[in-house]
């Protein structure tokens, strides 16, 4: 149900993304997925990595602010409206979605990362609805 996400604070200036990725690759961190949320001033890079805690410590020692959080990973079937159904169930239960993005992991269906304001309640609902999810173990984290 939960996977570990590594979030990295980035200033919007040239070369910062490259620097973060270089730090991770030099440390031998295997990245599974990446997504960048940005504003005109700054960005938050969200990474799914095989060793998130070690990745965070590597970044920290390079003076880069990063943290590890749990996010829910669901796999929605390749069918029209299937993502909407999942979101609707959460919405119906009064859960707010903070952000959502697609994960690039191999397999059937479309893997999606979801961050909500109430992760445990969201997990309960998804379980009850038999929504397929991914776990940290399945990703090798």
């Amino acid at each position, binding site marked *: 149900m939960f996977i570990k*996400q590594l*979030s990295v*604070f*980035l*200033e919007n200036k040239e070369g*910062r993304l490259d620097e973060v990725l270089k730090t991770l690759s030099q440390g031998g961190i295997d990245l599974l997925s990446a997504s960048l*949320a*940005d*504003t005109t*001033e*700054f960005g*938050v890079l*969200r990474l799914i990595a095989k060793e998130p805690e070690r990745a965070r410590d590597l970044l*920290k020692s390079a*003076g*880069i*602010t*990063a*943290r590890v*959080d749990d996010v829910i990973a669901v796999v929605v079937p390749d069918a029209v409206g299937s993502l909407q159904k999942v979101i609707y169930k959460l919405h119906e239960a009064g859960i707010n979605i*903070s*952000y959502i993005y697609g994960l690039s992991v191999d397999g059937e269906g479309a893997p999606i990362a979801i*961050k909500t304001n109430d992760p445990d309640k969201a997990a309960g609902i998804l379980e009850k609805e038999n929504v397929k999810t991914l776990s940290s173990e399945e990703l090798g984290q």
Partner: protein
Amino acid sequence: MIWNEAKECMSRDELETLQSARLVKVVNRVYHNVEPYRKKMQAVGLEPGDIRGIEDLYKLPFTTYEDLNANYPFGMAAVPPSELVRVHASSGTTGKPKIGVYTRHDIDIWAECVARCLSTAHITRDDVIQIGYGYGLFTGGLGAHYGAEYLGAMVIPMSTGNTKKLIDMMIDCGVTSIACTPSYLLHVAEDLEKLGLVDKIKLKSAICGAEPWTNEMRDQMEQRLHIKAYDIYGLTEICGPGVACDCDYHKGLHIWEDHFLPEVIDPATLEHLPAGSEGELVITNLTKEGMPLIRYRTKDLTHLEYDKCECGRTMARIQRFKGRSDDMLIIRGVNVFPSQVEAALLTVEGTTPHYMMVVDRIDNNDTLEVQVEVAENVFTDEVKSLEALSKAVHDKLKAAIGLNAKVKLVEPNGLEHFDGKSKHVIDKRKLYE
């Protein structure tokens, strides 16, 4: 034109006799009426009788903002509250404002001093003057207003904030002089140029103060508006604008020494320095009744020149400020201290992160950017909470200093560290060079 020739052109001997008599009187008054002064003097074994003239000035203890803060608001007043008719204030380092209190006589003296400054700029009763300083707690508006009225000029109390109306009235009323901050005047000049109205104005002079400015800014305003521009200096605690003003010869600002006794000290050793030395300007109120300050440390770095000026005045001239001995910044005429930014960050984040204040002057407008390092304790994976953090800092700063600062979240260690006086300030305006 010289408003009060008998005083402004006094011989040094006469002046020193007058200063000595006034110093003895004011020291007596504060010793008997102001407990903090009495304690300070007793602590160094001084009695009023030990001060026989200005040659004994250096024996007296200093007064600082911290003293005013500790005795805020009226603990340093030398008269009962019923004698006070006015309060002004400007921002201080730790949130408590720097306060100035006035008796009716103090208001009259202040008007006299401002009238001397305006006369130095050749303003007379035939002039029409717009006061473009804020009216209110800030001393600029009401201070310039009373002085101009006392002089007999026609005063238009514009205050700040409505440049269009200021320009309309400047043309309609045939305004010949303006008192405002130098950056605001340049802003007005720009608008006048945009509107193609520079030829329509009758402006001859400008009295600019409340923030440091450069010769280059003077050249700009004089050339663009075909006026003469003069620098006026003052500080709330001592009196307000009108403590000193420069003349046609621009060889420093004449300080009205019969009311404000100036000296220069070494800010590190606090030693009284001989005339002409470079150091921190210290002022003693010789005539103020409400809250006379003895050896008040202005934190402004300068030196004084005492030779008679070509304009005929004998009053000493404060030379171009070389900076401050503390880390105060004057941004759009507002006193800003890094400690205020620190306090704002502390209330928002619960800790003080690394930060940097970047001050610049873009199109003659002061700008303040506050760069805040996003450390682990405040970083979240959600963009909106980071944006909320940025907004909270902005709002706290706005409430604390009244300025809209641009808040920029930066990476840790992303802040360059300069060798300047304060590691939290980068002032790109080059006001003191």
